[in-house]
């Protein structure tokens, strides 16, 4: 596991990825590598717990857009929870919230995805 990904688990057949630190190109690629591996194994629903990620850059977030695109091909879904306000704001400005979902808590995320 990379430094950026601190935990991976499944809940209700949703893959839940916990991150820590700066979502830059390196962090983004750690997430996309993991998601594509899990997709190859048949998973289609993903959640990212971003409580530990207080800071992102647009390169890292654009890798999430790549993931959203790949998931559309298999009718998959991705969502996020525990976002810092600036991360939520960045996702809004970039329009990720039109193609993926932001949730308050893990429980809400698992129910709503």
């Amino acid at each position, binding site marked *: 596991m990379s430094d950026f990904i601190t935990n991976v688990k499944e809940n209700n057949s949703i893959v839940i990825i916990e991150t820590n630190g700066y979502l830059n190109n390196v962090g983004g690629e750690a997430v996309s590598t993991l998601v594509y591996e899990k997709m190859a194994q048949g998973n289609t629903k993903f959640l990212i717990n971003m409580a530990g990620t207080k800071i992102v850059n*647009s390169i890292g977030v654009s890798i999430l857009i790549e993931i959203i695109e790949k998931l*559309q091909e298999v009718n998959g879904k991705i969502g996020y929870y525990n976002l810092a306000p*600036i991360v939520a704001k960045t996702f809004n400005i970039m*329009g990720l919230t*039109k193609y993926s979902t932001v949730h308050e808590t893990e429980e809400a995320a698992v129910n709503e995805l």
Partner: protein
Amino acid sequence: MKQPSVELRLPILPNMELIATQTAEVISRHMNLTDDQGAEISMALIEACINAFEHSKAENNVFINFLIEDDSLVIKVIDQGIGFDKTKVEIPKIENKIGKDERKRGWGLQLIQELMDSVEFESNGEGTTVTMKKNIKH
């Protein structure tokens, strides 16, 4: 009295933009900005720095100046690279990216503009200066 300022000279190495954001945070606290304002400044600064690192093709060193004004924080990010024509940069739209061939990147300038109160670009063959300002509500 002259307004206080902080200057950084950063080498072009991975994650050096974090020096700029950490500096912005210390200055934001000094100026009693809110956490949200501080985070917006940091995010805009990251984008301006990674542009200077990635696109300017400058040999080395990006300069960042913070000017602590009474009613605003003004930040300049300066590279001595190849420059670019801002009017030729398209405004990104996620609808044009998802499921299309378009490159998923291209958000930096947009983010800077949304997160700061005013932004100016000066750019020519000798480099680029991005001047961005956050107003302080008293």
